[in-house]
């Protein structure tokens, strides 16, 4: 094929695309209410996973003051004397490179009486029931994840002589991390499910559209339109539905966030947390629009392909 011939075919292809593009826009605009309804259904379907995603992302971003949670409390067995405790503290500082604060039973009793309000209850005991306690904190700059470091250290501490039990506040953090991981998984599941819903809604809408325009499709076939030419406007239509749905989802998400931002900030301020509600951002929004368009395109493809297949003439080999 000569270069000129190729260019000519490319240009006529471009003109056909342009025709399909405008004819699909015309179809959208001629049924404004129907378009809006379909887009709204798609938008809400997309909003659910998106809003959960934003929620989980914001939870991930919360400043939970993890270093405080990394402190491990070691309770010594009753009867262990100061000498042994200080030896252990020195050993911990050496081997685990951690900061150790030793709290004697007397100090502990004092703190308890001051802070708990149960001070008088302690007078009932003939002798101080509290054991020696070591508070072990690892420096925040250490390598590895906090879970691994604290996990390894608390295991090591548990094996030392004279140690009764090791309490890891960090467990709570681990549980929270578990919940967040679950949230991530739910986002994934919802994204898959609602993507399917978007494809199904678009496919069904396009199917009805195809049925409504069966006469037009027949005429197009009769005057020599290829399947591609018949398919094209419907694919564009699906794409537009997807993009409009995504746009509505983003707008709804923005409204929800604007509505929730203030009460959330107030709540977290009360916990002494500085917090900024983070949305999807420009690139995230663009990605959502593209994904919506792609899903719409897929739905339209599924629908039109089935229809054209039914319309198609049997192949030359298949003589009935």
């Amino acid at each position, binding site marked *: 094929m000569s270069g000129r011939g190729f260019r000519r075919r490319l*240009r*006529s*292809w*471009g*003109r*056909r695309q342009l*025709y399909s593009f405008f004819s699909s826009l015309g179809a959208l605009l001629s049924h404004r209410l129907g378009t809006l309804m379909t887009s709204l259904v798609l938008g809400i379907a997309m909003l659910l996973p998106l809003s959960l995603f934003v929620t989980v992302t914001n939870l991930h971003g919360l400043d939970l003051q993890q270093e405080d949670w990394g402190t491990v409390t070691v309770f010594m067995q009753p009867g262990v004397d100061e000498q042994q405790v200080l030896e252990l503290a020195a050993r911990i500082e050496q081997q685990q490179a951690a900061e150790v604060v030793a709290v004697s039973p007397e100090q502990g009793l004092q703190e308890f009486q001051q802070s708990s309000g149960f001070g008088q209850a302690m007078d009932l005991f003939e002798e101080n029931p509290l054991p020696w306690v070591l508070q072990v904190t690892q420096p925040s700059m250490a390598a590895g994840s906090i879970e691994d470091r604290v996990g390894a250290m608390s295991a090591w501490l548990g094996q030392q002589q004279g140690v009764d039990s090791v309490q890891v506040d960090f467990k709570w953090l681990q549980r929270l991390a578990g919940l967040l991981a679950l949230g991530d998984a739910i986002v994934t599941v919802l994204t898959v499910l609602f993507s399917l819903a978007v494809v199904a809604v678009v496919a069904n809408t396009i199917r009805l559209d195809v049925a409504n325009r069966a*006469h*037009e499709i*027949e*005429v*197009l*076939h*009769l*005057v*020599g*339109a*290829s*399947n591609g*030419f018949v398919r094209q406007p419907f694919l564009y239509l699906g794409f537009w539905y997807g993009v409009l749905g995504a746009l509505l989802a983003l707008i709804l998400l923005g409204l929800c966030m604007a509505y929730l931002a203030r009460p959330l900030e107030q709540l977290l301020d009360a916990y002494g947390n500085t917090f900024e509600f983070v949305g999807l951002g420009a690139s995230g929004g663009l990605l959502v629009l593209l994904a919506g368009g792609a899903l719409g395109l897929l739905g339209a493809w599924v629908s039109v392909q089935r229809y054209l297949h039914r319309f*198609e*003439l*049997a*192949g*030359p080999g298949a*003589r*009935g």
Partner: protein
Amino acid sequence: MITFEHVSKRYPGGIAALQDVSFHLDAGEMVFLTGHSGAGKSTLLRLILMLERATRGQVIVDGRNLCTTPSRFAPQVRRRIGMIFQDHKLLSDKSVFDNVALPLMIAGMRYPDIRKRVRAALDKVGLLSKEKSWPLTLSGGEQQRVGIARAIVGMPPVLLADEPTGNLDPALSRDLFRLFRQLNEQGVTVLIASHDLALIRRMGQRVLVLAQGRLVDDIAPADIAGEAP
């Protein structure tokens, strides 16, 4: 231009629409196809348009054997054939201009060229003044002429018509056939299915007669003229 060799068409369910039909149309011929309804006229036209496939035999149009042509080439085959339908098959939500322009849009032609060709085609059928009208506002005869403009706008070498005068009064039918003859004189091969025997006789062209799916007669123009009306 069009050759049928022992063509049979049997629809699922065993109804034989065509049986062992053979004929040949030269390029530039004008031929009528007649017979009672159900004789197989429409099926024959549908085979030429690749809307159906022959069960047996060969259909050769413009040098291409349609029985061995894959379906994906059907649009190419149809673009070289202008087809006129009894029910016009116009799109009611598009203007007359856009209806006629459809085959050229499909071919991806430049808009200025489309304009020129559509206006020329509308001029030929005498509807240039109606290019902005909507099909439903036109009379039956005018709608039929829009269908003809659409069929000839792509300048196809073959023109097929399925009962084009079906809903028209005799005067309009005569005008229509005169238009077909003009097109034929410009070199287009024309095949018209019609049961309007009186009109066919007056046209004095070759006639193929179908009865119950068989080609029972192939009358030369000279014999038509001699027959009593």
